[in-house]
């Protein structure tokens, strides 16, 4: 049986983003952590949420190097031609 805490799951889950950003005021953070300590469901939710954010960021890592790769030559030509046309038009 779940122990009674002041903060509900609904409230705790609404605070997750600010909690991870370190933006919760101390009293709210304390209540949040107290809730987590007695609520395995919210603790699991927080872990899944945190990993979701990390995986979202990692999902595109292979599409971005430090310079983002090279522009296809055809696109370089098209952009330069469009600019030239605009400049002379």
């Amino acid at each position, binding site marked *: 049986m*779940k122990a009674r805490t002041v903060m*509900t*799951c*609904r*409230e705790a*889950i*609404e605070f*997750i*983003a600010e909690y991870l950003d370190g933006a919760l005021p101390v009293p709210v953070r304390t209540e949040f952590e107290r809730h987590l300590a007695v609520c*395995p*469901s*919210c603790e*699991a*939710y927080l*872990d*899944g*949420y945190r*990993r*979701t*954010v990390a*995986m*979202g*960021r*990692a*999902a*595109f*890592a*292979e*599409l*971005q*190097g430090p*310079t*983002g*790769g*090279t*522009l*296809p030559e*055809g*696109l*370089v030509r*098209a*952009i*330069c*031609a*469009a*600019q*030239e*046309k*605009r*400049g002379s038009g």
Partner: protein
Amino acid sequence: MNTHVWETAVLPHGPEPSPPEVEAPDSSPDAGLVLRIKSGDADAFEELVREAGGRMLAVARRMLVNEDDAQDAVQEAFLSAIKSLDRFDGRSRLTTWLHRIVVNACLMKIRSRRRRPERSIEDLLPQFRDDGHQKTPSQSWKPAGPSGIEQGEVRELVRRMIGELPEQYRVVLTLRDIEGLDTEAAAEVLGVTPNAVKVRLHRARQALKSLLDPYFAEGFA
């Protein structure tokens, strides 16, 4: 090949956003290149396209997925940038300025294309009982993720699930978590309040988690 000519490139909230990284005007390494472009030096323009284009195309690919759309957005962004180059005062990094312009160009593309039917975000958010506790307890995620799937496949799966999100949530998640814009910058680009960005980002992450649960949570087949 992409050969569209964008005669008018009006971006939703102006193509010359205030960049967050500020440098002294004289110390900008881009100042010389910008001056040459302003004077009509075609070689300088091409130099800029080659130097910054790859990074901009990577941004467009992350936001638009479709390769033709991504290349169109990059072209539109360059032409918009040149059009408003007089307003670039050299106090910021040119790459930062161009990043914001290509993000705007991508948003224009997203808004202009036909909307596909989307699932409701509500279906992907946690449900609660009247007493405020979760209707269905959350399951822990497997420590190592799904078995038998390579990391590359996991990344592809996550990209696909991000693509499943309703557009207004997917865009915010992309700007904040993937492009790294802060809340205020994302709000400025989207023309919404910072609080709206925070709410949408939280919901987008929650929805993405729900879409990933079947692959990562204990208790799913």
